[in-house]
């Protein structure tokens, strides 16, 4: 006898993510989820981003790693609350982890919540964290065919950030082809190229983040600079 079920495999994660999304809406929190392979420059991007904000702004960071609190230590120098999520082997963050750490951290909106996922282009793409946008990073020291190899995350991400563009003179990386590949998977994906070392492209990135809040019914006023 066949019994139809029709249920999402990750329905429990999706349930918690929906609660988080509601909480972000109620508390006026803009949440973004940064995903990339290890070493693409997520932490460097966050460092430079935090450095550009004033301490009067309400911003919190959750950063995930399989081991060590190195990233939280790097990010805590900027004066904003930062919490490391050590997954102890799990290759992605899930909604339950975000819920627990958000509660323990005691972060309330309005404000900006930046989530740095575990370095991995595969698994984090399956787990909804209630975020307003997934942002995928691709560095110029990687292959420009990454979007074709990891279509899941490029399909789900709203924005692709090409990082380390100060290294372009030294590596064989075809920027146009990388973007073309990303748009083969996701024609509407937005695109910004930047360098966290030189600051090139950062205005465009901060403008994008500011514009994102205006797309939501209750803008997170706290991130206005």
């Amino acid at each position: 006898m066949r019994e139809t079920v029709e249920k999402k495999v990750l329905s429990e994660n999706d349930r918690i993510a929906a609660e988080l999304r509601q909480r972000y809406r109620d508390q006026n929190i803009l949440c973004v989820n940064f995903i990339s392979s290890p070493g693409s420059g997520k932490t460097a991007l966050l460092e430079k981003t935090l450095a550009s904000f004033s301490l009067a702004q309400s911003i919190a960071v959750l950063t995930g790693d399989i081991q060590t609190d190195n990233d939280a230590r790097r990010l805590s120098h900027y004066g904003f609350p930062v919490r490391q999520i050590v997954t102890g082997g799990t290759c992605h963050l899930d909604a339950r982890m975000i819920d627990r750490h958000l509660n323990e951290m005691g972060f309330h909106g309005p404000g900006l919540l930046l989530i740095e996922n575990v370095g991995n282009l595969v698994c984090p793409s399956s787990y909804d964290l209630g975020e307003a946008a997934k942002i995928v990073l691709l560095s110029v020291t990687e292959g420009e065919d990454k979007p074709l190899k990891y279509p899941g995350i490029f399909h789900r991400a709203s924005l692709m950030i090409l990082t380390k563009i100060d290294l372009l003179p030294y590596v064989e990386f075809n920027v146009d082809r990388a973007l073309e590949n990303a748009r083969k998977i996701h024609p509407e994906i937005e695109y910004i190229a930047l360098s966290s070392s030189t600051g090139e492209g950062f205005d465009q990135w901060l403008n994008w983040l500011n514009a994102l809040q205006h797309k939501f019914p209750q803008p997170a006023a706290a991130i206005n600079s």
Partner: protein
Amino acid sequence: MHEIGIASSILECVAAEVQRHPNAQVLAVGVRIGELSAVDKDALGFAFECITRDTEWEHLKLEVEWCPRRQKCLACSQEFSVPDLNLACPKCGAEKSTCIGGTELDIAYLELEEPCAKP
């Protein structure tokens, strides 16, 4: 890589569903895995085998339906698959289309065996 977690979620769902059929034996669980779901079919099968071994679920079969990416043309509503990553509509040539399949990560059905009612 996260297929163990996915396999565990499938088992949790099966365990919850089975409560509604306390006398039945579950023979198989059917899942739909999309091309864009970031889940590898073989790795999932292996993970499922590993977590069910030597448990009450040892004989539970995992049946996977692989779902390729499907698009729907925004101009003429033609539905089409994209084996070559070409998202242009094969019928009218329009470039704008929307994704209507390939992101599945669903439990579709359970195959149950109810004991025969005693006369």
